[in-house]
Protein backbone atom coordinates (compact mmCIF):
# COMPACT_ATOMS: atom_id res chain seq x y z
CA UNK A 1 0.00 0.00 0.00
CA UNK A 2 1.21 3.49 -0.86
CA UNK A 3 2.43 5.19 2.38
CA UNK A 4 0.48 8.35 1.45
CA UNK A 5 -2.67 6.29 1.01
CA UNK A 6 -2.10 4.66 4.39
CA UNK A 7 -1.69 8.07 6.03
CA UNK A 8 -4.94 9.25 4.45
CA UNK A 9 -6.72 6.18 5.86
CA UNK A 10 -5.33 6.85 9.33
CA UNK A 11 -6.39 10.52 9.16
CA UNK A 12 -9.83 9.40 7.99
CA UNK A 13 -10.19 7.03 10.96
CA UNK A 14 -9.44 9.97 13.26
CA UNK A 15 -12.13 12.15 11.72
CA UNK A 16 -14.59 9.21 11.92
CA UNK A 17 -14.47 9.31 15.73
CA UNK A 18 -17.85 10.07 17.28
CA UNK A 19 -17.32 13.66 18.39
CA UNK A 20 -20.40 13.60 20.55
CA UNK A 21 -18.84 10.91 22.75
CA UNK A 22 -15.30 12.20 22.29
CA UNK A 23 -15.88 15.32 24.40
CA UNK A 24 -14.23 14.53 27.78
CA UNK A 25 -17.22 15.25 30.02
CA UNK A 26 -19.63 13.31 27.80
CA UNK A 27 -17.13 10.48 27.51
CA UNK A 28 -16.91 10.10 31.27
CA UNK A 29 -20.72 10.27 31.57
CA UNK A 30 -21.15 7.60 28.89
CA UNK A 31 -18.49 5.41 30.52
CA UNK A 32 -20.23 5.53 33.89
CA UNK A 33 -23.63 4.80 32.39
CA UNK A 34 -22.08 1.95 30.40
CA UNK A 35 -21.02 0.00 33.50
CA UNK A 36 -24.44 0.19 35.17
CA UNK A 37 -28.01 -0.46 34.09
CA UNK A 38 -29.09 3.05 35.08
CA UNK A 39 -28.24 5.89 37.45
CA UNK A 40 -29.57 9.21 38.66
CA UNK A 41 -28.09 12.70 38.36
CA UNK A 42 -26.71 12.65 41.89
CA UNK A 43 -24.84 9.43 41.24
CA UNK A 44 -23.30 10.85 38.07
CA UNK A 45 -22.34 14.08 39.81
CA UNK A 46 -20.56 12.21 42.59
CA UNK A 47 -18.81 9.81 40.26
CA UNK A 48 -17.76 12.29 37.55
CA UNK A 49 -17.07 15.39 39.64
CA UNK A 50 -18.95 17.51 37.10
CA UNK A 51 -21.29 20.32 38.15
CA UNK A 52 -25.07 20.00 37.96
CA UNK A 53 -25.22 22.42 35.03
CA UNK A 54 -22.54 20.51 33.14
CA UNK A 55 -24.23 17.18 33.58
CA UNK A 56 -27.62 18.56 32.66
CA UNK A 57 -26.31 20.16 29.47
CA UNK A 58 -24.37 17.08 28.34
CA UNK A 59 -27.24 14.73 29.13
CA UNK A 60 -29.52 16.90 26.97
CA UNK A 61 -27.13 16.54 24.03
CA UNK A 62 -26.78 12.80 24.53
CA UNK A 63 -30.53 12.42 24.83
CA UNK A 64 -31.07 14.42 21.64
CA UNK A 65 -28.68 12.02 19.85
CA UNK A 66 -30.63 9.04 21.16
CA UNK A 67 -27.73 7.73 23.26
CA UNK A 68 -29.28 8.32 26.67
CA UNK A 69 -32.83 7.69 27.91
CA UNK A 70 -34.17 9.99 30.61
CA UNK A 71 -36.93 8.45 32.70
CA UNK A 72 -38.82 10.61 35.16
CA UNK A 73 -40.55 8.68 37.90
CA UNK A 74 -41.83 9.10 41.43
CA UNK A 75 -40.21 7.40 44.39
CA UNK A 76 -42.39 7.76 47.46
CA UNK A 77 -44.18 10.79 45.97
CA UNK A 78 -40.87 12.54 45.20
CA UNK A 79 -39.84 13.19 41.58
CA UNK A 80 -36.79 11.24 40.54
CA UNK A 81 -34.95 11.00 37.24
CA UNK A 82 -33.12 7.88 36.11
CA UNK A 83 -30.66 7.94 33.23
CA UNK A 84 -29.61 4.96 31.16
CA UNK A 85 -27.84 4.26 27.90
CA UNK A 86 -30.08 3.21 25.04
CA UNK A 87 -29.09 0.28 22.83
CA UNK A 88 -27.94 2.86 20.29
CA UNK A 89 -25.86 4.56 22.98
CA UNK A 90 -24.23 1.30 24.10
CA UNK A 91 -23.40 0.36 20.52
CA UNK A 92 -22.03 3.84 19.83
CA UNK A 93 -19.87 3.72 22.95
CA UNK A 94 -18.51 0.26 22.06
CA UNK A 95 -17.71 1.38 18.52
CA UNK A 96 -16.07 4.55 19.85
CA UNK A 97 -13.83 2.52 22.14
CA UNK A 98 -12.87 0.13 19.35
CA UNK A 99 -12.07 2.99 16.97
CA UNK A 100 -10.03 4.83 19.60
CA UNK A 101 -8.10 1.67 20.39
CA UNK A 102 -7.32 1.19 16.67
CA UNK A 103 -6.24 4.81 16.29
CA UNK A 104 -4.06 4.73 19.39
CA UNK A 105 -2.53 1.39 18.37
CA UNK A 106 -1.73 2.82 14.93
CA UNK A 107 -0.21 5.93 16.48
CA UNK A 108 1.85 3.85 18.89
CA UNK A 109 3.06 1.71 16.02
CA UNK A 110 4.05 4.81 14.07
CA UNK A 111 5.83 6.25 17.12
CA UNK A 112 7.93 3.10 17.57
CA UNK A 113 9.00 3.05 13.89
CA UNK A 114 10.09 6.68 13.93
Amino acid at each position, binding site marked *: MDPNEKETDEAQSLTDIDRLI*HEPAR*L*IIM*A*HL*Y*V*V*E*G*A*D*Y*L*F*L*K*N*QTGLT*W*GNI*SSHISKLEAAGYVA*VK*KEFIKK*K*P*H*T*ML*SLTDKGRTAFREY*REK*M*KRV*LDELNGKGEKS
Partner: protein
Amino acid sequence: MTREIDLKKLERKVFTSHYEDGLWDLFFGFLFLGGVFIPMVSWLPMVLFSIIPQLVTGVIGCAILIAGKKYITTPRLGLFKYSQRQEARKKKIMLVLTIFSIIGAVLLILGLIFSITFPTVPQPELPVFLRTYNKYLTALGVGLLGFSLPLGVVSYFLKFDRGYIIALLGGMIFFLTEIFYIFVGTPLDTILTYGIIGGIILSMGLFYFLRFLRKHPLPKEEMVSGSE
Protein backbone atom coordinates in the same frame (compact mmCIF):
# COMPACT_ATOMS: atom_id res chain seq x y z
CA MET B 1 -3.72 12.40 25.44
CA THR B 2 -5.02 8.88 25.74
CA ARG B 3 -8.76 8.41 25.72
CA GLU B 4 -8.63 4.79 26.84
CA ILE B 5 -10.89 4.20 29.78
CA ASP B 6 -10.39 1.13 31.93
CA LEU B 7 -14.00 0.00 32.30
CA LYS B 8 -13.14 -2.69 34.88
CA LYS B 9 -11.47 -0.09 37.08
CA LEU B 10 -14.42 2.24 36.61
CA GLU B 11 -16.87 -0.51 37.51
CA ARG B 12 -14.88 -1.29 40.65
CA LYS B 13 -14.85 2.42 41.59
CA VAL B 14 -18.63 2.58 41.17
CA PHE B 15 -19.30 -0.49 43.31
CA THR B 16 -16.81 0.31 46.06
CA SER B 17 -18.17 3.85 46.41
CA HIS B 18 -20.94 2.41 48.57
CA TYR B 19 -18.42 1.24 51.19
CA GLU B 20 -17.24 4.79 51.72
CA ASP B 21 -19.91 5.34 54.36
CA GLY B 22 -18.33 2.92 56.89
CA LEU B 23 -21.71 1.39 57.71
CA TRP B 24 -20.53 -2.19 57.17
CA ASP B 25 -17.67 -1.53 59.59
CA LEU B 26 -20.16 -0.20 62.13
CA PHE B 27 -22.24 -3.36 61.71
CA PHE B 28 -19.29 -5.65 62.39
CA GLY B 29 -18.13 -3.40 65.22
CA PHE B 30 -21.51 -3.76 66.96
CA LEU B 31 -21.52 -7.49 66.27
CA PHE B 32 -18.18 -8.01 68.01
CA LEU B 33 -18.91 -5.62 70.86
CA GLY B 34 -21.78 -7.93 71.81
CA GLY B 35 -19.16 -10.39 72.96
CA VAL B 36 -18.36 -8.07 75.88
CA PHE B 37 -21.66 -9.14 77.43
CA ILE B 38 -21.03 -12.89 77.12
CA PRO B 39 -19.82 -13.25 80.75
CA MET B 40 -23.08 -11.63 81.93
CA VAL B 41 -25.16 -14.45 80.45
CA SER B 42 -22.80 -17.27 81.38
CA TRP B 43 -25.54 -18.92 83.46
CA LEU B 44 -27.31 -19.94 80.22
CA PRO B 45 -26.49 -23.25 78.46
CA MET B 46 -23.09 -23.03 76.72
CA VAL B 47 -24.04 -22.54 73.08
CA LEU B 48 -26.77 -20.05 73.89
CA PHE B 49 -24.69 -17.78 76.11
CA SER B 50 -22.17 -17.15 73.40
CA ILE B 51 -24.80 -16.26 70.81
CA ILE B 52 -27.47 -14.12 72.49
CA PRO B 53 -25.47 -10.94 73.26
CA GLN B 54 -23.96 -10.87 69.78
CA LEU B 55 -27.34 -11.63 68.25
CA VAL B 56 -28.79 -8.58 70.00
CA THR B 57 -25.96 -6.20 69.09
CA GLY B 58 -25.85 -7.74 65.62
CA VAL B 59 -29.49 -6.85 65.11
CA ILE B 60 -28.75 -3.29 66.30
CA GLY B 61 -25.83 -3.10 63.89
CA CYS B 62 -27.99 -4.46 61.08
CA ALA B 63 -30.70 -1.88 61.77
CA ILE B 64 -28.08 0.89 61.66
CA LEU B 65 -26.72 -0.52 58.40
CA ILE B 66 -30.11 -0.71 56.67
CA ALA B 67 -31.39 2.63 57.97
CA GLY B 68 -28.06 4.29 57.24
CA LYS B 69 -28.01 3.07 53.65
CA LYS B 70 -31.60 4.24 53.10
CA TYR B 71 -31.59 7.61 54.87
CA ILE B 72 -27.95 8.70 54.81
CA THR B 73 -25.94 7.03 52.04
CA THR B 74 -28.37 6.86 49.13
CA PRO B 75 -29.62 10.47 49.48
CA ARG B 76 -25.97 11.59 49.34
CA LEU B 77 -24.45 9.22 46.78
CA GLY B 78 -27.39 8.76 44.48
CA LEU B 79 -28.88 5.63 42.99
CA PHE B 80 -27.66 3.25 40.38
CA LYS B 81 -29.08 -0.03 39.08
CA TYR B 82 -27.00 -3.12 38.55
CA SER B 83 -26.99 -4.63 35.08
CA GLN B 84 -28.45 -8.13 34.60
CA ARG B 85 -24.96 -9.62 34.50
CA GLN B 86 -24.11 -7.90 37.77
CA GLU B 87 -27.39 -9.01 39.37
CA ALA B 88 -26.64 -12.63 38.46
CA ARG B 89 -23.14 -12.23 39.91
CA LYS B 90 -24.60 -10.72 43.09
CA LYS B 91 -26.91 -13.72 43.51
CA LYS B 92 -23.95 -16.10 43.15
CA ILE B 93 -22.04 -14.12 45.78
CA MET B 94 -25.01 -14.26 48.18
CA LEU B 95 -25.19 -18.01 47.68
CA VAL B 96 -21.47 -18.38 48.43
CA LEU B 97 -21.91 -16.11 51.45
CA THR B 98 -24.78 -18.22 52.76
CA ILE B 99 -22.84 -21.45 52.35
CA PHE B 100 -19.77 -20.00 54.03
CA SER B 101 -21.88 -18.57 56.86
CA ILE B 102 -23.37 -21.98 57.56
CA ILE B 103 -19.95 -23.67 57.42
CA GLY B 104 -18.48 -20.91 59.59
CA ALA B 105 -21.25 -21.16 62.16
CA VAL B 106 -20.87 -24.94 62.37
CA LEU B 107 -17.08 -24.67 62.72
CA LEU B 108 -17.40 -22.00 65.40
CA ILE B 109 -19.84 -24.05 67.46
CA LEU B 110 -17.69 -27.19 67.06
CA GLY B 111 -14.64 -25.18 68.03
CA LEU B 112 -16.36 -23.83 71.13
CA ILE B 113 -17.40 -27.29 72.19
CA PHE B 114 -13.91 -28.68 71.47
CA SER B 115 -12.04 -25.88 73.24
CA ILE B 116 -14.10 -26.38 76.38
CA THR B 117 -13.93 -30.18 76.40
CA PHE B 118 -10.28 -30.39 75.29
CA PRO B 119 -8.64 -30.05 78.76
CA THR B 120 -10.43 -33.21 79.85
CA VAL B 121 -9.45 -35.20 76.78
CA PRO B 122 -5.98 -36.73 77.21
CA GLN B 123 -3.96 -36.87 73.99
CA PRO B 124 -0.64 -38.50 74.92
CA GLU B 125 0.08 -39.41 71.28
CA LEU B 126 0.51 -35.72 70.34
CA PRO B 127 4.02 -34.18 70.28
CA VAL B 128 4.90 -32.09 73.36
CA PHE B 129 4.67 -28.83 71.42
CA LEU B 130 1.16 -29.59 70.26
CA ARG B 131 0.04 -30.84 73.70
CA THR B 132 1.29 -27.61 75.24
CA TYR B 133 -0.02 -25.20 72.62
CA ASN B 134 -2.96 -27.20 71.27
CA LYS B 135 -5.46 -24.87 72.91
CA TYR B 136 -3.97 -21.80 71.24
CA LEU B 137 -3.55 -23.43 67.85
CA THR B 138 -7.12 -24.69 67.97
CA ALA B 139 -8.40 -21.23 68.90
CA LEU B 140 -6.38 -19.68 66.08
CA GLY B 141 -7.42 -22.34 63.57
CA VAL B 142 -11.11 -22.12 64.39
CA GLY B 143 -11.07 -18.33 64.19
CA LEU B 144 -9.16 -18.16 60.93
CA LEU B 145 -10.99 -21.01 59.22
CA GLY B 146 -14.41 -20.30 60.67
CA PHE B 147 -14.45 -16.54 60.27
CA SER B 148 -11.44 -15.01 58.53
CA LEU B 149 -11.47 -17.28 55.51
CA PRO B 150 -15.21 -16.96 54.68
CA LEU B 151 -15.26 -13.21 55.24
CA GLY B 152 -12.02 -12.84 53.31
CA VAL B 153 -13.48 -14.68 50.33
CA VAL B 154 -16.69 -12.67 50.45
CA SER B 155 -14.70 -9.42 50.72
CA TYR B 156 -12.77 -10.44 47.61
CA PHE B 157 -15.93 -11.00 45.57
CA LEU B 158 -17.70 -7.92 46.90
CA LYS B 159 -14.53 -5.83 46.44
CA PHE B 160 -14.74 -4.71 50.09
CA ASP B 161 -11.10 -4.03 50.93
CA ARG B 162 -11.62 -3.20 54.61
CA GLY B 163 -13.33 -6.59 54.89
CA TYR B 164 -9.89 -8.23 54.95
CA ILE B 165 -8.95 -6.24 58.07
CA ILE B 166 -12.26 -7.11 59.75
CA ALA B 167 -11.80 -10.76 58.74
CA LEU B 168 -8.33 -10.90 60.28
CA LEU B 169 -9.33 -9.12 63.49
CA GLY B 170 -12.43 -11.27 63.91
CA GLY B 171 -10.49 -14.46 63.31
CA MET B 172 -8.07 -13.59 66.11
CA ILE B 173 -10.75 -13.32 68.80
CA PHE B 174 -10.57 -16.86 70.23
CA PHE B 175 -6.79 -16.85 70.13
CA LEU B 176 -6.53 -13.47 71.89
CA THR B 177 -9.02 -14.62 74.53
CA GLU B 178 -6.72 -17.56 75.33
CA ILE B 179 -3.74 -15.19 75.54
CA PHE B 180 -5.52 -12.66 77.75
CA TYR B 181 -6.66 -15.49 80.02
CA ILE B 182 -3.03 -16.04 81.03
CA PHE B 183 -2.75 -12.46 82.31
CA VAL B 184 -6.20 -11.44 83.53
CA GLY B 185 -8.21 -14.65 83.87
CA THR B 186 -11.90 -14.98 83.15
CA PRO B 187 -14.22 -13.06 82.53
CA LEU B 188 -11.86 -10.16 81.77
CA ASP B 189 -10.22 -12.15 78.97
CA THR B 190 -13.51 -12.24 77.02
CA ILE B 191 -14.46 -8.65 77.83
CA LEU B 192 -11.06 -7.29 76.83
CA THR B 193 -10.80 -9.25 73.58
CA TYR B 194 -14.26 -8.45 72.27
CA GLY B 195 -14.04 -4.89 73.58
CA ILE B 196 -10.73 -4.22 71.84
CA ILE B 197 -11.57 -5.93 68.55
CA GLY B 198 -15.10 -4.50 68.46
CA GLY B 199 -13.78 -1.09 69.47
CA ILE B 200 -11.17 -1.01 66.71
CA ILE B 201 -13.68 -1.99 64.02
CA LEU B 202 -16.34 0.39 65.35
CA SER B 203 -13.80 3.25 65.46
CA MET B 204 -12.82 2.50 61.88
CA GLY B 205 -16.48 2.61 60.91
CA LEU B 206 -17.09 5.87 62.74
CA PHE B 207 -14.07 7.46 61.11
CA TYR B 208 -15.26 6.53 57.61
CA PHE B 209 -18.84 7.49 58.44
CA LEU B 210 -17.94 10.98 59.64
CA ARG B 211 -15.59 11.50 56.71
CA PHE B 212 -18.38 10.41 54.38
CA LEU B 213 -20.81 12.92 55.89
CA ARG B 214 -18.28 15.75 55.45
CA LYS B 215 -17.41 14.75 51.90
CA HIS B 216 -21.01 14.24 50.74
CA PRO B 217 -23.43 16.88 52.05
CA LEU B 218 -27.12 16.46 51.29
CA PRO B 219 -27.92 17.93 47.87
CA LYS B 220 -30.94 20.16 47.21
CA GLU B 221 -34.00 18.16 46.25
CA GLU B 222 -34.57 19.88 42.89
CA MET B 223 -31.03 19.00 41.86
CA VAL B 224 -31.57 15.31 42.62
CA SER B 225 -34.78 15.21 40.61
CA GLY B 226 -32.95 16.68 37.63
CA SER B 227 -35.26 19.63 37.37
CA GLU B 228 -32.67 22.34 38.13
